[in-house]
Structure formats: C-alpha cells, structure tokens
C-alpha cells in the first residue's frame, strides 16, 4: 500500500463553513433550539422563584440556578442531560448517509479532497453549532440570574459554570460521534436516527435499571445486614458504580455534581474513617473539584474519540457507489 501524498486537511475549512451555514440556517436547528430554550428557561424560571427567598444563605447562589429543582419540573442540569444528546443526534444522524442519499457523495469526493476532510469538517461543524447553541443558553441563564436575583456571581462561580459548559459540550460531542457513526454505518437516515436514539434511551433509562438488576443477581441482599440496619455490601456498591459509569449520562451527571456542588468530596462510596476531621458541607477549591471529576471527563472524551475513530475507519473503507 503506497503512502498517499497531500494533506488530509485540504478542504476541511470549506466543508466546515458550508455545513455550519446549513445548520444555522436550517429548519431542524431552529426546532431544536426552541425545544432547548423553552424547557431550559422553564426549569430556570421555577428555580429562580425558589432562590429569591434564599439569596443571603448560599455562597454559591448562581450555581444553584443550574441545579435547583422544584417539582414537577426538573432542574436545568437534568433537562440538559436529556436534551443535549437529542440535539447532538438531531444534528448528526444524517451527516454522511444524507450525502449518499442525495447522491452528492461521489461528486464531492471526486473533488481534490480526501474523505478525511469531509468527515472532520462535518464533525467540527456539528460540534461548533452545538457549542454555539449551548453557550447561548448558558449566557441566557446567567443573564436571567443577574436580572432576577440581583446578585452578581463571584469569579469562582463563573469559572465553575464555564467548566460546566465545557463538560456539557464534551458530552454533546460524544453523542455527536454516536450519531455520525450511525450515519456512516446505516444507509437509511431513519434507521440511523432510530439507532442513535435507541442507544441514547438504552444508556440513559434502561441501563440504570439493568445495573440494579445485575447487581442484586450477583450480590443478593444479605438478610442479616438488613436486620441490623446496615447498607448494601461494599462489593455490590462498587460493582454498581462501575457498571453505571459505562453510561455517558452517569459520567456527565457525576462531573456536573462535582462542578456545581462544590461541597462534593467524593463520587464513590466513602468510609466514616475518611471523613474524620472534615468540616461537613465545607466547599472544595475549584482545582480539587476538577481533580475529582477528571476521570469522568477523560472517560467522556475517550469515548468520543473512540466512536469517532470507528466511524472514520468505517467511512474510509466504504464503497462510494450505490
């Protein structure tokens, strides 16, 4: 196999610009944006109603904007856990097979670019669109908080909220990689969308239930422990955590917990002995919180890269013709 000459990145910026123009001007993006905006603002609004009464008590008031929930509405963060994958899948599910079905793929690949450029350009354009949408929403939330609460956020709150935005974009990138991989594997756009959505439902709804089931099967609850009021065994706890962390929504949830609740000290089981000398409820510094969620964020990034590479390899080997 001879070495190919020429840069694989020739044309990436052209593809990127065309795709991002398509997304931003497109009807689909407008629908998704309104969906996110309405649900997000709804969640924030109820949070603000509650927070106004407690402005003086909480040192991290602004972060509460993102996490506070008042039934029946979920918190802003839990809305995002559901909606970010939806938007990402909506953006990416027909990126490659759409070109194929419009019969533009062979014509575009006959231009002097490598296939790499098409896939990179599309992925980056989707990611940029997602980032723009999320950043807009994030700014809206902060602005709404400023107006309604009347208290400016301190620098640490802004840094933490910024880190939260980056983690949310990474989470979106992961689902984008899923959607683009589906669009490479399936020639029909409907199959690709259904598969991506099915996967999303599987890991965010079915997987947690399955995990519980598996854990009780492997570590049946010990009646003696229950009798003495003890919790589940350490082994079962660890297994449960390990399994549930296979789901990106768990990883995202834990990262958000670490970032937006500065008092979070550990994401796993913790022993009484480890809490000795700790001041309960005292917040961690930003650096410590970042250290805490580092593995989760790395896991999200790793999964994204892995999925993208899978899609990439499959796309390189695909036949262009019908």
């Amino acid at each position: 196999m001879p070495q190919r000459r020429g840069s694989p990145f020739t044309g990436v910026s052209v593809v990127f610009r065309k795709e991002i123009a398509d997304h931003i001007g497109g009807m689909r993006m407008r629908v998704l944006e309104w969906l996110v905006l309405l649900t997000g603002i709804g969640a924030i609004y109820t949070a603000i109603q509650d927070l106004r009464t407690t402005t003086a008590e909480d040192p991290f008031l602004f972060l509460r904007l993102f996490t506070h929930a008042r039934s029946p509405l979920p918190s802003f963060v839990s809305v995002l856990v559901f909606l970010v994958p939806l938007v990402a899948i909506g953006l990416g599910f027909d990126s490659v097979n759409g070109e194929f079905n419009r019969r533009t793929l062979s014509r575009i690949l006959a231009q002097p670019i490598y296939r790499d450029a098409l896939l990179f350009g599309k992925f980056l354009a989707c990611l940029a669109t997602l980032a723009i949408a999320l950043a807009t929403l994030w700014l809206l939330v902060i602005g709404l908080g400023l107006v309604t609460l009347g208290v400016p956020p301190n620098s640490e709150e802004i840094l933490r909220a910024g880190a939260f935005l980056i983690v949310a974009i990474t989470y979106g990138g992961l689902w984008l990689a899923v959607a683009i991989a589906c669009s490479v594997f399936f020639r029909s756009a409907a199959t690709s969308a259904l598969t991506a959505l099915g996967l999303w439902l599987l890991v965010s709804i079915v997987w947690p239930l399955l995990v519980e089931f598996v854990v009780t099967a492997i570590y049946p609850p010990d009646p003696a422990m229950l009798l003495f009021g003890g919790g589940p065994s350490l082994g079962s706890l660890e297994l449960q955590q390990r399994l549930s962390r296979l789901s990106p929504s768990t990883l995202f949830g834990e990262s958000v917990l670490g970032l937006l609740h500065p008092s979070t000290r550990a994401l796993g089981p913790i022993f009484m002995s480890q809490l000795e000398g700790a001041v309960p409820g005292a917040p961690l510094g930003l650096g410590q919180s970042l250290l805490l969620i580092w593995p989760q964020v790395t896991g999200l990034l790793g999964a994204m890269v892995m999925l993208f590479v899978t899609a990439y390899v499959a796309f390189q080997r695909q036949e262009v013709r019908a």
Partner: protein
Amino acid sequence: MNSILLSVCGLKKRYGPINAVAGIDLELRRGEILGLLGPNGAGKTTAILMMLGLTEPSDGTIDIDGFDPRRDPLEVKRRVGYLPDSVGFYDNLTARQNLRYTARLGGLPRPKIEAKIDRSLRRVGLDPVADRRVGTFSRGMRQRLGIAEILMRGVKLAILDEPTSGLDPQATFELLEIIRDLKLDGTAVLLSSHLLDRVQAVCDRVALFHEGRIVLEGTVPELAQNVLGAGYVFEVEVVGAGVRRLIAHLEGVREVTEDDGILRVLADRDLRAELAQAVVRSNGSLFRLSSAEPSLDAIYRHHFEPSHAAA
C-alpha cells in the same frame, strides 16, 4: 508533453469471488473522446472509480497525466472532473451556490470563482436559472449543471458516467452537443454508457465492455470492419418483387435484412450505384437510397450472439 493523458494497464477489481473488472488496458490521448460502452454491470463504473482513486484496485496500474491515483489522489482529482451516474446536488442551495462550494473545495483562486461560474453556466445554458434552487431542476438540468462544474474547474479529463441515461431525446441531444463543446476546450472525455447508438456519434473511439473486460476497441468503422466483416451500410426503400434476392447476389454484399419495407444492406465497399442499377433492372420502384453509419448495437450483438447474424 506526452500525448497520452490516461493509461491503464492490467486493471483488476475483485469483490469476493466476483471479478467486477477482470484486467483492462486502455489509453486515452489528450483531447480525445472515448466511449466506454457496454451493458449495466459490465464493470464500467468500477473502472472509473478506480481511475479517480475512489475505489482501491485489486491489481494493475493507472497513470493520469503522470500521477497514480493510489499515491497522488489529490493531484489526479485536480486534473479530472467526474459526473457520476444520476448526479446529485444540494437541493436547498442555488445552482451558483453549489458550484461555488465545489470551486472552493477545488481550491480555485477566490477572485476568479464568480466569473468562472458565470461563464460555465452560460455555456451549458443555465444562466437564466443560476439563482434558483437546484431542488426545482429537472434531470437534464442537473446533468448540465454537472458539466458546468467540470467546465468551471478547467480539468484535463472529464469522466462522464451514463450522462444521458433517463433523459428525453431533446435533452440527450443538447447534452451531447455540450460534450462536443468540452472537446473544443482540449478536454479529453471518457464517456460511459449502455445506450450504444446514442453516444457513438460523439465518440472518436469506443471500447466495448463485457463482463469486466474490454472486448473490442477502436473507431466505429474499424469495429464494423472487424466484427461485421464490412464497413458500409445502406438503406434502400424499394417496392418490387425479387429485388431483395437480386441485391443479395450483388458482389460485395454481406448481408441484407428487411425491416418494414426498408432493406438494410451491409457491404464491403460503396455500392450505391450498383444498388440503384439492381433496383432498376428488376423493375422495382426506388424511393430512397442512403448510406448509414454501421450501428454499434449491431456490432455488439453480432459479436456476442453469432446466431443473430444469420437471420
């Protein structure tokens, strides 16, 4: 400058046990129109995709203007324009926007792009609809837009895959005119089609594909001479008994077929005078006598179904 633009040697492509292309050799000179003809599934499109570097050949070498598509696909694609079978465009963009996108992908210098787009759209007659969405275009207009893209890029070789399939006769005629126009630019054209008769008129040379191989190659009269054993065809419209038998016995006549009162005579040499005499001698009434191009269809059928020729 080397006069050979494209040379293909021993090109093969296997899909599992199937030999889609079973070893073809081909040469194309600069500014020449070569027709790749043959039925669907004969390996034409696969061969084309390998020349563009879009499909990996199993064996063989390709050289386009000194570049190997396996090693320098970008250089090859800069020199080659491709119009795929039933070409697609972005329906939500206008003709001009579609061309602008490929112009930028091709790395044409920015300031020249708009002028080139205008010029190429005018040449294929799409300038009145330049700012209409491609979604509203007919099939023939899309094909012409595909050719406008090739004109705009100013390539050395245009590969057109089934450009006339699905077009009505008028659109086909217009498209073939535009293809002739490409040649005037000095662009070599590789034209694939399964409609033998439609494209034989524009081709300088043809290569007939059959089951992944090129079985015949040359100009149409050459092929007729080789396959039919005779290079001249005349059509005689005549009324009169026994005329057919008389003509069939003329010296140099290879074959006479009758279709709806018109005799089709295949001969080694120009027999128009003798044919007219023969009709007069048999007291028949001659309504028309004309010479025709030997049809590729006949050549193809003759080559693959020898029994057909006996009829």
